[in-house]
């Protein structure tokens, strides 16, 4: 048997990579992608827990996460497109309209 902690470790490492991507990339799309990566890493751990605890809840939660991720991706990308139309860049370090 594969121990539960292995899954969790894998999930943790992927999550950290996602965080790194989120914080470091310039391209907004890649940032979204990193976000998806983080979500997926969480999903893995959830499913693993679900499996080892013999409970369905973790998997149900994954459903919802996927749902929300889809919605988020759709909205996020739509915003991105809308933004790009006004201001043709998607590099986050060039987007500073909120600068104080």
């Amino acid at each position: 048997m594969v121990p539960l902690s292995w899954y969790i470790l894998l999930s943790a490492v992927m999550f950290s990579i996602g965080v790194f991507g989120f914080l470091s990339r310039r391209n907004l799309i890649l940032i979204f992608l990193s976000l998806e990566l983080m979500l997926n890493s969480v999903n893995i751990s959830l499913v693993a827990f679900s499996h080892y605890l013999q409970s369905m809840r973790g998997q149900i939660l994954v459903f919802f996460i996927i749902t929300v991720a889809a919605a988020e991706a759709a909205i996020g990308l739509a915003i991105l497109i809308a933004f790009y139309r006004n201001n043709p860049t998607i590099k986050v370090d060039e987007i500073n309209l909120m600068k104080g």
Partner: protein
Amino acid sequence: MSTPQLFFAYFAVMMTGLSLMVVTRKNPVHSVLYMLILFAHIAALYLFLNAEFLAAIQIIIYAGAILVLFLFVIMMLNLRKEETEKRFQKQWPLGIGIGVVLAVFLIMIVGKIAVIAPLGPYSIDAVRSDGHIMTVGKVLYSEFLLPFEIASLILLVAVVGAVVLAKRKIE
């Protein structure tokens, strides 16, 4: 090491590597493609954990829908010159630092936790007898009916929102 463990080791190494590729590629299309492979591995891992339906969904929704959406957007924006420019922000060392520290912290947590919850009724055999889809369906439509309906609303909002936002002009 037993066979499952070997399998897992393969997945773990591959997924970590693919994740790294996703976040480091210069060309977004490449990133997305690596992501695609990653999702396939995740789906396989789900199978490994007796979650067939989720595996299917991972492929269909994530890879088939969401990633394609990403691809569409990338194509649409036609970011050719992106490839020639820097891929990381100035703060990327900090990003690495935080990522590493976070990983260390999380690993340390993993070492500390012990799952002492009582086991639920959905043992592998129980799931197998009904089939994964039916089991999930039963739970989803009974215990989680309300969140499910809410999720549908979220999707609706997302649909409407995406249409409104992406429309050329708001009148």
